């Protein structure tokens, strides 16, 4: 089952500037975790906004589930006048859930991101990592098949980010969502994504793809298990992709 299909997608913002996205083809199956990797300004957010319906493509076609997609922004974009719980409840309300069921469901979602005890705090009283977790709970409250995440952890410190990676993978396994996760951090992409896609800049295109599943679980794919630990294996893949990303960036130096 296909969750997202982009065919020949392109986008330019003005007649003068060249296209930001050109001829992007992408198919994401249901339940997949796809990491989208690219240099700053290559059009990752633009691509995601088009999939989320916030922006119209100038060419090509976009197929997403009729209900639309949930989107988590680069900054949490929580409503500052609502407590964490109310932010989640508002998402439930806007999706049409009856009032009586909302508090219980909001509590469950906050528990899922391990913030049950912080429900009454306003966004400014929370740390950046906690805010992103509330934003994740709010995105999950939309109960959409597809969850789009735009560099959700890029502003966080390394320890918090590490922990949130584990949490996100746990939630992904528990909920079975289709996730498209944008980042410019190769390690993050390799760790989280089943598929890692590399985008070029100006025009933005998907230039290469890596499947991390055989690396993470060699036995299931009939590969020879070697003595390397998983960390070393993924480290090697990370170095390969980083080299390719650098190559892509230095193409623009000339």
């Amino acid at each position: 089952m296909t969750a997202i299909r982009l065919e020949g997608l392109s986008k330019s913002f003005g007649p003068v500037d060249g296209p930001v996205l050109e001829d992007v083809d992408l198919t994401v199956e249901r339940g997949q975790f796809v990491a989208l990797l690219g240099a700053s300004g290559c059009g990752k957010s633009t691509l995601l906004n088009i999939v989320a319906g916030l922006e119209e493509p100038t060419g090509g076609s976009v197929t997403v589930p009729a209900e639309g997609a949930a989107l988590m922004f680069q900054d949490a974009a929580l409503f500052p006048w609502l407590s964490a719980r109310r932010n989640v409840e508002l998402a439930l309300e806007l999706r049409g859930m009856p009032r009586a069921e909302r508090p219980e469901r909001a509590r469950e979602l906050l528990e899922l991101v391990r913030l049950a005890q912080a429900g009454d705090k306003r966004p400014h009283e929370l740390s950046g990592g906690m805010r992103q977790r509330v934003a994740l709970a709010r995105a999950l409250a939309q109960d959409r098949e597809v969850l789009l995440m735009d560099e959700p952890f890029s502003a966080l410190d390394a320890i918090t980010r590490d922990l949130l990676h584990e949490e996100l993978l746990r939630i992904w396994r528990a909920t079975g969502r289709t996730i498209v996760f944008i980042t410019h951090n190769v390690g993050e992409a390799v760790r989280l994504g089943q598929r890692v896609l590399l985008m070029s800049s100006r025009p933005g295109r998907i230039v290469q793809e890596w499947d991390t599943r055989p690396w993470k679980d060699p036995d299931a794919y009939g590969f020879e298990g070697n003595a390397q630990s998983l960390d070393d294996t993924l480290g090697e893949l990370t170095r390969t992709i980083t080299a390719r990303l650098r190559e892509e960036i230095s193409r623009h130096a000339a």
Partner: protein
Amino acid sequence: MPPETAAPSVPAPPAAARPAVAPPAAPAGTRPSPGADELAGLDALQTERTRRTPGAEVLRTKVAPPLVALLFALLLWQLLVAVLGPRPDVVPGPLDVARQVAVLLSDGTVLGALGTSLWRGVSGFLIAVAVATPLGLLVAQWQGLRNAVGPLISGLQVLPSVAWVPAAIIWFGLSDATVYFVVLMGAVPSIVNGMLAGVDQIPPQLRRAGHVLGASGWTMASRVVLPAALPGYVAGLKQGWAFSWRSLMGAELIAIGGSIGFGLGSLLAQGRTVSNMAVVMVAVLAILAVGILVELLFFNPVERRLLRGRGLLGHRS
């Protein structure tokens, strides 16, 4: 004796220690991952502790300084009058004014005028709010209308509303309608402008978040736009009140007689007519006092609460 009370030296384990001994069974499906404790630890480290300023400190930092300044100004005033000795009907000292206050208070003039003006000011302001709020929303949400009347509204805000007094007298005669008309012309543009500024300053990200969550039309306006614009709106209300009060005083000062009641502005005009500087001073001080008190006791607390709730105020301010 029952053993429970006989052995006070063996205390029950403190409630907080119990989970460590016998952890509650995790509900099925939410088996804690190893990171859960670390996350909870980080949360505890990173959460801001909200601290309320104690009452004594408020008294010391907020209430005492202006009172001391006021006292100082009064002393200086009295000193100058005592040293220079001007005619008391031209430059009265604070004691002369205080005496005049006592006289006007005892015959009910000041309180009557104060009551009349306050009633008009407050009711005029409330009417202005009722008119300006829907108008502001309409102009903010409808770009065509905004292009058409936006410049007019900004212009009206600059025009001193006292300039409407002659026109109002021609239309409504010397009646309360004249006063209310001038008050409305003073307050409505401020409130509409505050609403417009509030809507303009909404971070685009919040609208996008609302859109992604499925808000549109009415739900977008009521759940996202209005609450997000509230600080600007309240700032507009505050300015609207200031303009109402000023316009009212201007109108009362100019339009006297007819069926117009006797307000503070009328008292001011009367003081001028009979050349009694002490009466003039009493009226000015009363007008000033109302302005300061309404701001301090009503608008400032409302505004602070609002901003603090959104993390837009430091803890100490």
